[in-house]
């Protein structure tokens, strides 16, 4: 473990003097890695969801079915590209590109590891470090929405349009919550650069320091990537396929790619912001040298994979939310809570410079006691009113709730018992009926 974090901006100067060929190598590697991770993710998702549904999932092509998504991808590329007649030519072509490119660009600022030496050149495992790195990620995600929105519009049919309208509203709403949760991290790290944020977590991950921010980020990143249970833009039960209904072949593959890359991107961002980026988790971090060289790649991708597993888990578990519930969650819960939390964090940051920890704890305790006391003073909620009358409905084929079957008339009952006692006189049929009852 490296006890002294490097000064802010250290990695930026380290990366800034990379020769051109090294930058090119990094670009190619990041690109290839993302393509591979996407293929892996599709397989991973199908396998995990399969296990959750008591079935094996794809296990036929290659070891453990790993080549299944490659085969699917090839098949997709060779399919016919169906072009709707009512499309807008230029925009229909532009939309998938606009949705894929920002997803890849966001990876240029993700720190994958600390300082290493590549072919004798000292550099960091990061394509580039800009002073506003985390904002670059936000900018990429906000440009990526154009892909979805324009795809729906350019298709020239109603379902995609509805899907893209939903998507626009959804991503704009959840981007606010996302931004609010990031501000807390930035306040503590004192920098917008992703590498600096990771360095600042040397003493403790921000998931412990800023749990509320982490929760808000985790919820809104699912909303931002249009994944279940927030996959309303492509709700197949309501909108056929949503914004990509009219897309086929490679254009559809690009949307697919963008969705998965976005998932991986936001998982990586969450790792960077809250889980200490490439730093080893606690018991391992006590071993010296575990945070140096190429080993941190392992920790980074391990944590990212954990987030991706949660994505898949959510999809396998939760039903899709209704649109108004989803919007209410974003606007009435996440954003106000995010704002309040931000005020609290900012106030604590100011107080830290002026008060001692003991004073802050005392003040916080007093505030807590007052809050709890006030909560006790609140009157109890009235029990919900019972409906006095059960919903008896005429002319509707349901049994009434207060159904009372009248007892059989005595005459008949007597006849039945008589028939049972004298089966010969009652005839064969009644005997059969009685014996049949015995069978039951």
């Amino acid at each position, binding site marked *: 473990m490296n006890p002294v974090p490097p000064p802010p*901006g250290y990695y*930026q100067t380290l*990366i*800034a003097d*990379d020769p051109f060929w090294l*930058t090119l190598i990094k*670009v190619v590697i990041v*690109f290839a890695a993302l393509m591979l991770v996407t293929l892996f993710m599709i397989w991973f998702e199908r396998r995990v969801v399969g296990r959750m549904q008591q079935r094996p999932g794809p296990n036929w092509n290659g070891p453990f079915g790993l080549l299944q998504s490659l085969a699917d991808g090839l098949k997709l590329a060779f399919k016919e590209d169906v072009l709707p007649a*009512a499309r*807008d030519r230029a*925009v229909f072509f*532009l939309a998938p590109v606009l949705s894929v490119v920002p997803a*890849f*660009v966001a990876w*240029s*600022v993700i720190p994958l590891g600390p300082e290493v030496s590549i072919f004798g050149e000292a550099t960091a495992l990061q*394509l*580039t470090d*800009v*002073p*506003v790195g985390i*904002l*670059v990620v*936000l*900018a990429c995600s*906000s*440009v990526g*929405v*154009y892909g979805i*929105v*324009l795809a729906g*519009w350019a298709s*020239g049919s109603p379902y995609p*349009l509805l899907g893209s*309208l939903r998507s626009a509203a959804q991503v704009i709403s959840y981007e606010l919550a996302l931004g609010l949760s990031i501000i807390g991290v930035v306040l503590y790290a004192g*920098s*917008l*650069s992703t590498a*600096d944020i990771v360095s600042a977590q040397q003493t403790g991950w921000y998931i412990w320091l800023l749990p509320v921010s982490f929760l808000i980020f985790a919820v809104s990143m699912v909303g931002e990537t249009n994944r279940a249970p927030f996959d309303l833009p492509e709700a197949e039960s309501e909108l056929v396929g949503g914004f990509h209904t009219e897309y086929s072949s490679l254009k559809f593959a690009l949307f697919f790619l963008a969705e998965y890359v976005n998932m991986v991107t936001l998982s990586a961002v969450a790792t960077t912001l809250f889980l200490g980026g490439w730093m080893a988790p606690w018991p391992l971090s006590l071993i010296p040298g575990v945070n140096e060289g190429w080993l941190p790649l392992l920790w980074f991708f391990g944590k990212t994979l954990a987030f991706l597993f949660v994505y898949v888990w959510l999809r396998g578990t939760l039903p899709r939310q209704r649109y108004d519930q989803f919007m209410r969650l974003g606007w009435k819960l996440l954003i106000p809570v995010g704002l309040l939390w931000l005020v609290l964090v900012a106030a604590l940051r100011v107080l830290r410079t002026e008060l001692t920890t003991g004073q802050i704890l005392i003040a916080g305790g007093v505030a807590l006691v007052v809050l709890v006391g006030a909560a006790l003073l609140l009157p109890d909620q009235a029990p919900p009113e019972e409906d006095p009358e059960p*919903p008896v*409905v005429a002319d*509707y*084929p349901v*049994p009434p709730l207060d*159904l009372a*079957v009248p007892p*059989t008339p005595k005459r*008949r*009952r007597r*006849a*039945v018992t008589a028939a049972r006692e004298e089966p010969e006189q*009652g005839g*064969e*049929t009644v005997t*059969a*009926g009685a014996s*049949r*009852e015995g*069978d*039951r």
Partner: protein
Amino acid sequence: MSAAGLVLSAAPVTGGGEMTTGEAVVFWILGPLALAGGLGMIFSRNAVHSALWLVMTMLSLGVLYVVQQAPFLGVTQIIVYTGAIMMLFVFVLMMVGRDASDSLVEVLRGQRLAAAVLGVGLGGLAVAAVADTLTAGGPVGLGPGYGPEARGNVVLLGSSIFLDYVLAVALSSFLLTAAALGALVYAFAGRPRRAASSQRARVTERLRGPLSGYGSRSGPGVFATADSVATPALLPDGSVAPASLSNIIEATRRERLDADIADVQSESGPAGDVDARALRGDGDGGGESGGDSGAGSTHDRLSAGDHGSTESETTR
């Protein structure tokens, strides 16, 4: 991706006013693009296309800001203008519909001429102002205190917004909040407030209200006086179908209905005979229809009955 990556990493480290090669390359790529975006916005017929051209201009400007040592401004430009404001524009334009186009009839007389004159005048003013700064003074605000060494001048920007001009910023934010609230009030003022109905209320409304008539009824060809599970089904001859009797539902316990079965058997003559054979055929030990659960279809039961009838005839 590589272009943006290079641009981001090629943010110049120089502090002076001279232009590096990377900066020049970026400028000569993005400058024409921004210009083309502006022209395209003006000349395209489709409103959404116009908006997209404008998006291109804004993106180009954002990257240019980044290159000129203002990364925060550049990225904020992309987030705020491209990501939020233009997205709202596109949102509204999409609502308008794809084929909606502006009518070309001139409403105001001489409007085009006036617009041309004013536009050229505004352009002239802007060019004059910018040209003046090109020659009058060198670059200001670059160097160690502002550039990448200062971590993207976010700190300076923050202190000037939240310390020096805090009153102005707070007032303008109040103004914007009031404007947003006002818009909401205007949008919702005329409408009566709809009471939030609970799920229970909605169920009651569905069952008792004006829509209560819309439910699924028995299919055509089914003769039934009731659809209740508490009412046993009748076979075509009017006898009780044993398959419709259940051990679980108290109302249709076999013991309760034995009397009915007996009625049919003893009083109604041939029909009762048929029913009796059906029962007997089923009860013969489950030779054909299983007979253990009573879940066979009416058809099974009738065929079993036929079988039973032949049997009983032979015994007779």
